[in-house]
């Protein structure tokens, strides 16, 4: 009898303690490894600032589950192997309450093995490679959530706009590396779906500067659309050499690089009519986007880039999921995230059963009189596509 009562009492205390007002428990610590130095330093720091701003604002609004939020961030020097070690340390030594994603696909790919092992939910704001999330059933990852659009979506706007205008032929070139190739594959698949014919497809090595032969072949194939899955240097070289060889598609779009101001600085009026793709722009009419940009500028004294916004949104999404779950428990937060549909300053969030992003929209921009205008998708556009692109000698 007494032992039973004692047991009941202990249980009651336990239940009570679990439900105690949280402020007494100290802050919720969220751990992350970020590329603060090394190759990705520039972008990793933007992401870090996104996290910082998210935590600051959340704390100003009463924190999470009644507790303050505190980020524990280590520098992985842009090395996946270091990030693996750091997540291990965060979870086992620092015993953080939660983790959040690092910068870039390769680092996320490596770190995900650790967070899965310890069954920790990880929202990964800056991993765009499909294969991190779409895996064979026996290697499925349960606790990983994607925020940005996948590489395959980068050229969707170009293909969609071309198909709507009745264009039938497309040529696709890409740098022969993981991300750029995936974007090229995505474009080819979308084009086929829309009844367009891929008349030319070729990869080129990283660092290539001479596109004469590729462009000669494209000139012969005479496509109505040219889609180039590029980074930056190659986008500049291809554009200049298109003019040298008088390659005149009705539409010409690139992926990364086309949205940077430097693109126009280098090419001047030759950048006109060219479309680029981006995950996010300050001018997009997403709820809270303007407020985010203003607060960011005030806090860090510089304009946010999409890496800042994605980091910010990833943190906001995770906090929202915890709030709705009412607990930090991985499985419960996972259930909420799988069903969550949310709009942030970064745009829409919704994932499928693999944690793969399905709602976030890429936007397509076009250079018009030296200004970058959003031309796709229609509901986010702030200008109309200039079409068709005139021949080089008439621009």
């Amino acid at each position, binding site marked *: 009898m007494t032992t039973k009562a004692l047991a009941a009492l202990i249980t009651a205390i336990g239940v009570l303690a679990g439900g105690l007002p949280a402020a007494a428990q100290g802050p919720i610590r969220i751990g992350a490894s970020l590329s603060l130095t090394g190759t990705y330093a520039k972008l990793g720091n933007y992401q870090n600032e996104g996290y910082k701003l998210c935590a600051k604002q959340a704390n100003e609004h009463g924190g999470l589950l009644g507790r303050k939020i505190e980020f524990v961030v280590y520098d992985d020097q842009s090395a996946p192997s270091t990030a693996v070690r750091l997540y291990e340390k965060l979870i086992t030594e620092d015993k953080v309450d939660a983790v959040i994603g690092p910068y870039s696909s390769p680092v996320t790919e490596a770190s995900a093995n650790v967070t899965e092992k310890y069954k920790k939910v990880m929202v990964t704001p800056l991993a765009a490679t499909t294969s991190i999330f779409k895996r064979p059933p026996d290697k499925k990852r349960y606790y990983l959530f994607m925020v940005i659009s996948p590489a395959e979506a980068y050229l969707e706007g170009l293909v969609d706009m071309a198909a709507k205008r009745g264009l039938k032929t497309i040529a696709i070139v890409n740098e022969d590396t993981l991300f750029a190739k995936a974007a090229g594959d995505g474009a080819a698949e979308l084009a086929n779906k829309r009844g367009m014919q891929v008349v030319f497809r070729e990869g080129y090595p990283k660092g290539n500067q001479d596109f*004469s032969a590729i462009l000669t*072949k494209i000139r012969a194939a005479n496509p109505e659309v040219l889609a180039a899955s590029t980074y930056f240097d190659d986008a500049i070289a291809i554009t200049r050499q298109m003019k*040298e060889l008088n390659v005149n598609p009705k539409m010409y779009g690139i992926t990364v690089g086309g949205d940077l101001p430097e693109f126009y600085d280098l090419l001047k009026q030759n950048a006109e009519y060219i479309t680029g793709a981006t995950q996010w722009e300050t001018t997009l009419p997403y709820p809270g986007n303007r407020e985010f940009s203003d607060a960011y500028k005030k806090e860090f004294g510089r304009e946010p880039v999409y890496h800042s916004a994605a980091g910010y949104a990833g943190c906001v999404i995770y906090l929202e999921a915890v709030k709705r779950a009412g607990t930090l428990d991985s499985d419960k937060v996972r259930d909420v995230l799988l069903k969550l549909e949310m709009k942030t300053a970064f745009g829409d969030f919704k994932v499928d059963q693999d944690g793969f992003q399905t709602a976030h929209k890429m936007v397509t921009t076009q250079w018009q009189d030296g200004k970058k205008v959003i031309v796709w998708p229609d509901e986010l556009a702030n200008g109309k596509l200039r079409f068709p692109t005139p021949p080089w000698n008439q621009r």
Partner: protein
Amino acid sequence: MNVVVTPAMLGQVVISGILSGALYAMVALGLALIFGVMRIINVAHGPLLMLGAYATYFLSTALGINPYLTVPVSMAMLFVVGVLLERTLVFRVVDAPELSSLLLTFGVSIALVNLAQLLFTSDLRSVEYLTGAWEVGPFALSKSRVVAFVFAGALTGLAFLFLGRTKLGKAIRATSQSREVAMVCGIDVQRIHLVTFGLAAALAAAGGALIAVIVAIQPEMGQIWTFKSFLVIVLGGAGNYPGALLGGILLGLIEQVASLFLTTQLSEVVAYVLLVAILLVRPTGLLGGRQT
């Protein structure tokens, strides 16, 4: 999905190949000169080309000079840089084992690239001057590449005239054939080394200046030119100056034609496989080595 190659396309890439080949030849001639006269493989040749490109960029954008008029200025500036390099560093390794000169010029190369990154940043820069093409029948002739071809042809011609007709040029060739005999004949070999290094740097600078009008430039643009120049002089015959001309055009053609029939990725493989093949069949290069 792939394109059937027509004669017009072949013609187009042959034109592209010859146009870029002339640039390869001119730049490689500088490397060949240094190797011939001083027996040094100058790994810093490409970075010197990069400096020439930046000289043209700054002269034409900051001072508004026509980029083609900056070519002689870039050349003169890099001639001085070359002379200073020779006088302070390179002369120390002229008679040293080849590894020493490789290490030294490799160090110079890294230093120049990093210096450029510090001074100019890694941002891409471009000289937008002569863009677009002249349409000739079915062919498109890139304006900037045609002009570069003319310049490269003229400068290479001048370099050969200088080597063949002037007293100094003959002294350079004599030194290249045998330093000891040249010395015995009263040629100031130290001075010849100085002039050769300066001249080679100037040829690299001319290449850089012309390239700056064709592609966007950045501090790491030079290294690939070191490799290409090396390939050219081995193809043509190390130390054989007309060989550089042949090697340059040949490399340009191989790259373009291979990219046309295969892919751009494979074209580099083709060039290097051919290099190995030539070294196996004719170890001294197509025109043979050192027959100046």
